[in-house]
């Protein structure tokens, strides 16, 4: 029983936390077509969605490309840096 309780508590702690987000920032160097390809091939977004997010980065200066736990967002940010995209993570409400 205590085991179940503990796990429930852990779950509650995670689920109630403010989610984290991965943000990709605009830069004047990366090609629109390349950024689109990264969003499509890494995150698996369908092409129109990858396009929409890329244009959002391009025109608004940034876009939230993923939401989830801090650990997941850290993995995404590291991956984006591997692609040469400028990405950061933060709490959703920051």
């Amino acid at each position: 029983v205590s085991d179940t309780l503990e796990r429930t508590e852990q779950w509650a702690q995670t689920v109630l936390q403010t989610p984290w987000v991965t943000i990709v920032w605009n830069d004047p160097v990366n090609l629109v077509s390349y950024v689109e390809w990264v969003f499509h091939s890494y995150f698996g977004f369908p092409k129109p969605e990858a396009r929409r997010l890329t244009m959002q980065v391009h025109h608004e200066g940034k876009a939230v490309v993923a939401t989830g736990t801090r650990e997941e967002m850290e993995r995404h940010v590291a991956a984006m840096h591997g692609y040469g995209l400028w990405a950061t993570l933060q709490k959703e409400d920051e």
Partner: protein
Amino acid sequence: VKGFRRVEGNACLELPAIFAAELANLATQLAALISERDSHVSDAALERLLPDAYRGRDEDAAEFRRFTEEELSDEKVRGALTIAEHLASDGSSDTVSITLDPQESFLWLRSLTDIRLVLANRIGIDDSGEPAEYDEQLDYAWAIYVWLGDLQESLVRVVNH
């Protein structure tokens, strides 16, 4: 100079040897820039290649860096050196022919990005996508930068097929 073409699922490129040598040289320089970096010397190009994962949270950024920077920088160095190898010419021809499978194309796209990011910093590309202060000394670097953009665009087209 023509860009990449799609041939039977691969990306093919024929480059005049002099262009191949120029790109190989840039790739080798990139590998050296990253592997010989000194964390006490600030370089905006390196800060862009290996950026902070957190804004305004220095401790978190440092912690993240401690766990990820080595792998990330090693990967970038390996990528750049692989590009340089692909471009190596035996000097017997005025052109270098390159055939990339999808995995190699993936690596090229990422490494071309890194090279362009550093070049952009060195020529002072601003938000307009062009050099902030243009002078004739930049002619050559700017031409290379524009060429690499076209080259990358052609490779994106091939992998997007």
